[in-house]
């Protein structure tokens, strides 16, 4: 690509010919986080603690101290997050190739199915049906599962029952297939976690984590505005914080979409 094309692209972004869609929830203390059984260590919730706000603690400036777990808010999972990816090279957010932070996406709309069944599982036949309409998923693309889950109130969004969370996600076969047969760069969801709420009962447990990270691929979760993306053609910009040996990070996820 010559620099002219790149300048053309910048111009298209500036003019709105390329639409920039924010797929990110505001990082706030109110946003639900993953809940593990209490005997395990927990993700620190998001805390925003004011240092000063043009007051005695700092008369001319406003700033905050932040605390949060790596897996809070709209966030990125690196391969080192799961045991299956622990021995891979460049598997943490500070070492993963920056080139991977920009990649196209295929968006599979399962919002109708998820509305009917909170435990909806994406399967190979559903993806194959999608491919019949939109073409084969090209290599090194993100696959994003649209469920419209991000439009729910927080309680329905977390959807915790006495047998755990009930939220949609992928089944085990489709995750293995997406990684091995379609060579996806990663998998993204609107829900808390790339896996379904009940994925601990699948084989293997948490198959999205298991296969994605075992294959050196990435996860994106707690995203919103997937309904504003076309099935193909969007480009995802997802650059996690460069945390030393980090397993993931909250981040700003942007999608670039050719204008209407």
């Amino acid at each position, binding site marked *: 690509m010559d620099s002219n094309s790149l300048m053309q692209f910048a111009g298209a972004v500036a003019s709105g010919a390329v639409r920039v869609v924010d797929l990110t929830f505001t990082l706030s*203390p109110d946003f*639900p986080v993953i*809940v593990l059984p209490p005997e395990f*260590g*927990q993700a*620190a*919730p998001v*805390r*925003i*603690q*004011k240092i000063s706000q043009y007051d005695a603690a700092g008369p001319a400036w406003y700033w905050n101290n932040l605390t949060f777990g790596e897996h809070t808010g709209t966030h990125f999972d690196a391969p080192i997050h799961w045991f299956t990816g622990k021995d891979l090279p460049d598997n943490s957010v500070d070492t993963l190739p920056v080139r991977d932070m920009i990649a196209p996406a295929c968006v599979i709309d399962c919002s109708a199915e998820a509305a009917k069944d909170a435990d909806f599982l994406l399967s190979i036949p559903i993806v194959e049906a999608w491919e019949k309409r939109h073409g084969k998923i090209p290599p090194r693309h993100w696959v994003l599962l649209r469920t419209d889950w991000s439009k729910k*109130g*927080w*309680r329905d*969004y*977390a959807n*915790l*029952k006495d047998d755990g969370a009930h939220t949609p996600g992928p089944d085990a076969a489709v995750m293995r297939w997406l990684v091995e047969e379609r060579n996806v760069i990663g998998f993204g969801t609107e829900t808390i976690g790339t896996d379904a709420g009940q994925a601990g009962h699948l084989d293997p447990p948490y198959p999205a984590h298991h296969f994605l990270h075992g294959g050196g691929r990435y996860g994106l979760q707690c995203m919103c505005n997937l309904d504003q993306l076309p099935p193909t053609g969007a480009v995802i910009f997802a650059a996690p914080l460069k945390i030393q040996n980090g397993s993931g990070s909250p981040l700003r996820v942007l999608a670039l979409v050719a204008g209407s």
Partner: protein
Amino acid sequence: MIEPIAKPRRKNPLLRTRLPTSPPAPRSRASHGFTRAAAEGRFMLQRCGACNAFCYPARDACPACLSADLVFVDAPRRGMLLSETTLHVPADVHFRERAPWRVGLVAMECGPTLLAHLHADCAEGQPVVMSLQLDKSGQAVAFAHPERETPDMADDRQWREMTADPKFRRVLVTNGRSAVGQEAVAALKAAGASTVFVGIAEPWKPFRGEDGLRALDGVQIVPLDIGDEKSVTDLAADIGGKVDILVNTTEHVRAGGLLDRHGTSILRDEIDQSYLGFVHLAQAFGPAMRMRGADGVNSAAAWVNILSVYALANWPVFGAYSASQAAALSLSHSLRAELRPGGVKVANVFTGPLDIEWFQTVPPPKVAPRAVASAIVSALKRGLEDVFVGDVAEEIRQRLAVNPKAVERELGR
């Protein structure tokens, strides 16, 4: 006869809120024997080890035999009201605002004569029962009650100055998820609280007892995550001027000490909840409560902490938790001193292991959440500062008074 207090009307926004004033505070060091007794709701007088005579007020030597062997001991409470005086124009600002004010001389059956504040149903020449109370300065004073219960006796104007009775007051219970929190809500409503605000953190997580809590009349569920400074200040912005009693029912219990825990995240959670949560609440709600200490029938009156008795002596099985409780205890003493100018009491309710999931493997006796709730209401109605609920807490208190080193060794076995 006591005229029952009426539910307070809404405030006239054109009128200035009266600022709290304090009764005279100075006391001798010896007389803090009374302060300790009043804090725990006991009635104690000095007794001479040499001649066995009770004496009053507090002294350094026995007025009967001049022995220095004066010890505070639990004393019989009965006496007779010798004389009464009604102060119509006291020189002191605090009492002038509250005039007319009745005081009297009570001849105790055990010997000494006490100068006491009088319940309105006490009559000259009649038997009375004494208690020691903490006044709005936090100092111990003697209070005479009628011998038998009389109608609406808790509504007595002078008695209500000594207590933090929940009747017609608005209460914030900070954590409605826990069994203790839910029992406290029910007990405070039963005690006549007009509104109970109940804090719920992370409202997207369902919890046991939620439907029952929502069904209670006069109970208002509010978002409150005390570990989050902004959540606490946001709630105080809404209801800070309406919280007359704050009951901190934070509960974050995890077993373990130092060496068998991996990393510090569990310790940090404990500190966030027990200590920083307390700091957030105090900074957000404390100033308004201190300012509203004389704001009529539903003035700000009390702050209640529920603390593990292992705040006083570390139990290594729950070692890090004990330490977080000790930090909260220390902070409560600072809060108590800082709220005192407002006449707002700080009560610490000490418990042994509770009968809750996090003490599942601890053998009985364990304290029922309902017993904690009863103790909270009782502490408020009696104006207490230090309350020990259940056998374990009471035993630790007694053993600490004898030999703290022995308690340390025995808990650490």
